[in-house]
């Protein structure tokens, strides 16, 4: 009997502890609920910092939450339902999957809760349910990576020198084929790379690896293979497996489309040291990453990675809240606000303009 009481009281005490960490909600400040796609990458924490800054500037209250991993659709849907039940003034949403939140978006529209998309936003959302989206133009970001890769002398030489008897492989590794931001980058890279290669080697370029992007070469012979590799799941271990498999094909260049696949690449190459330009096992392999984070920055600084494309996560968060506030004030906002992207290498990563976009 005593034991029981102890157990119950411990439970209740623990639960009530949460009352102290719960943010107090003042009734008069507008409340904006933000639901991201995750928390596990530094990226989201920088988005949250930007959102917090905007919240302070405009005197609104925000909560920021996201599922533990980017496969957790059900968790995100539950979060969105809870956020809506909290009667927010506005919602900011980076949807993992549009179809799974369609009903919720329609409900928001009926209830008059404005929804702002951020990061990948909510692609193909029902007409009129999303007021505005603060995001990177992901296809442009992918194309930028392709341009930069082809701009490297060694890669260009390989592209022009490839024959159908000695074909080369260029690869892109993505953690999934579901989210709009990642498929956008993949598509942007594949299309631009195909364009560049097909110009140098007409009819001899094929895209392989995944049905979504698959394209046979026009002549039937292949000198350049653009290999799209999608990890089995978004976990680092599966991204690592995908990276290892790609490396075994001996590609000339690899583009990793987000933090997840960058991490997979790094763990497949002994934290990048296998890519060391002088004594690494894969010293001739050109790798381009995406976003930042301590390990990627280190890899770029050591020239293990040639460089990386960075978005502006801070501004994504800041703009999302700003757009929500503007909407609440009845101002008209653009349907899409591009938050920009940049390519950085070891040479320019310390320029103030670039360094401001990078995070540890």
């Amino acid at each position, binding site marked *: 009997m005593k034991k029981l009481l102890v157990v119950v009281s411990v439970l209740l005490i623990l639960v*009530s502890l949460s009352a102290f960490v719960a943010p107090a909600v003042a009734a008069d400040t507008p409340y904006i609920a933000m639901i991201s796609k995750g928390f596990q990458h530094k990226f989201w924490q920088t988005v949250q910092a930007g959102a917090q800054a905007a919240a302070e500037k405009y005197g609104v209250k925000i909560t920021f939450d996201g599922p533990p991993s980017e496969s*957790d*659709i*059900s968790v995100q849907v539950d979060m969105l339902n*809870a956020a809506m*039940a909290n009667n927010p003034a506005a919602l900011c949403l980076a949807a993992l999957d549009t*179809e799974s939140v369609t009903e919720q978006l329609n409900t928001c529209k009926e209830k008059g809760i404005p929804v702002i998309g951020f990061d990948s936003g909510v692609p193909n959302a029902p007409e009129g349910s999303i007021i505005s989206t603060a995001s990177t133009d992901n296809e442009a970001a992918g194309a930028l990576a392709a341009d930069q890769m082809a701009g490297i002398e060694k890669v260009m030489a390989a592209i022009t020198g490839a024959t159908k008897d000695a074909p080369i492989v260029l690869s892109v590794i993505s953690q999934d084929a579901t989210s709009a931001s990642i498929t956008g980058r993949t598509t942007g890279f594949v299309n631009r790379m195909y364009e560049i290669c097909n110009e140098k080697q007409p009819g001899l370029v094929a895209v392989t690896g995944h*049905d979504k992007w698959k394209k046979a070469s026009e002549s039937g012979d292949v000198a350049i293979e653009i290999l799209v590799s999608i990890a089995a799941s978004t976990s680092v271990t599966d991204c690592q497996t995908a990276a290892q498999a790609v490396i075994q094909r001996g590609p000339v260049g690899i583009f990793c489309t987000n933090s997840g696949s960058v991490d997979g690449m790094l763990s497949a190459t002994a934290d990048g040291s296998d890519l060391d330009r002088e004594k690494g096992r894969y010293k001739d392999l050109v790798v381009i990453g995406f976003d930042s984070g301590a390990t990627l920055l280190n890899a770029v600084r050591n020239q293990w990675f040639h460089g990386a494309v960075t978005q502006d996560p801070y501004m994504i968060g800041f703009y999302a809240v700003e757009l929500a506030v503007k909407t609440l004030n009845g101002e008209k906002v653009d349907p899409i606000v591009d938050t920009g992207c940049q390519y950085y290498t070891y040479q320019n990563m310390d320029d103030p303009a670039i360094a401001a976009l990078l995070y540890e």
Partner: protein
Amino acid sequence: MEKNKKFNFTKILAPIVLVLLYLFFSIFGRNFFSDDYLINILDGSYYIGFMAIGVTFVIITGGIDLSLGTTMMCAALLGGAAFNSWHWPMIWCLLLVVFVATAIGFLNGVLVAYLNLPPFIATLGTQMMGMGFGAILTRVQTMRYPTFGTPEGWFKNFFYKTTAGFPVGIFWLFGFFLIALILLSKTKFGRYTFAIGSNREAARLSGIKINPWLTGVYTFCGFCCGLAGIFYAAVYTSIIPSTGNGMELLGIAGVVIGGTSMAGGTGTLVGTLIGVYIMSVLKQGLMSMGLQSHWQTFFTGVVVIGAVLLDQYRLKQGAKVKK
């Protein structure tokens, strides 16, 4: 008389915790005491409820089924593939979901009963097989079920919510719960489930053919996972390949919180359902307080440990009474 009272107290503890939690969040949560949140609590627990009902039977036999989550997702993926790629009518897709899950359950049963594999190992294996199988057959593509208002979207109105927003899923869950309740308490199937769990050897000696009945229990659990798959698809629409591992623990946690002993031989379905709703109230409640998801995971863990401590305490009490 004194002992009787104690026994009753442990029995009603879980419902008391449920009510206390609900009251607690109603006071401290933002807008928690509302239809919106009540519906959220129901919606978010359909699939867990079905899994938990199924695995309650398995746990009563002294076994465990770790393949719940991936069986559900694998079946839902195949149903989605049937809908998206093979263009089957929705009704056949839903039947396929149930069929696939039941087949995996049957496989579990054969492995455990006839081939004598420890349930933990057998279902760990089928967990991974199911996860891989779904991904292979769908070529690692996310499968999407029809949304509300589309021609085949009727299944959502039928299983999940009416157009007016009434959560009809609750009738299905409770209806099925009643059937399972009768199955467990009023039929041979239920009696043998308990008999196998409390003493397998004694059950065998008393003339029960263990193997077919045990296979039946796992098959039934698979069937429940199939139903869970339908409701998961109805509520969440999109099924991602290679997911579902970890979800079995939600179902098992519900059973454990509800007071079913992992040692087998005892257990109640009412407890299971309450356990499922304790988790759901906890999850929604913490969200209504604006706490990030890590807190929910943390507190669910706390509740599970609390429940197991209770389980041990009950066992001890049971032993005392036997003396």
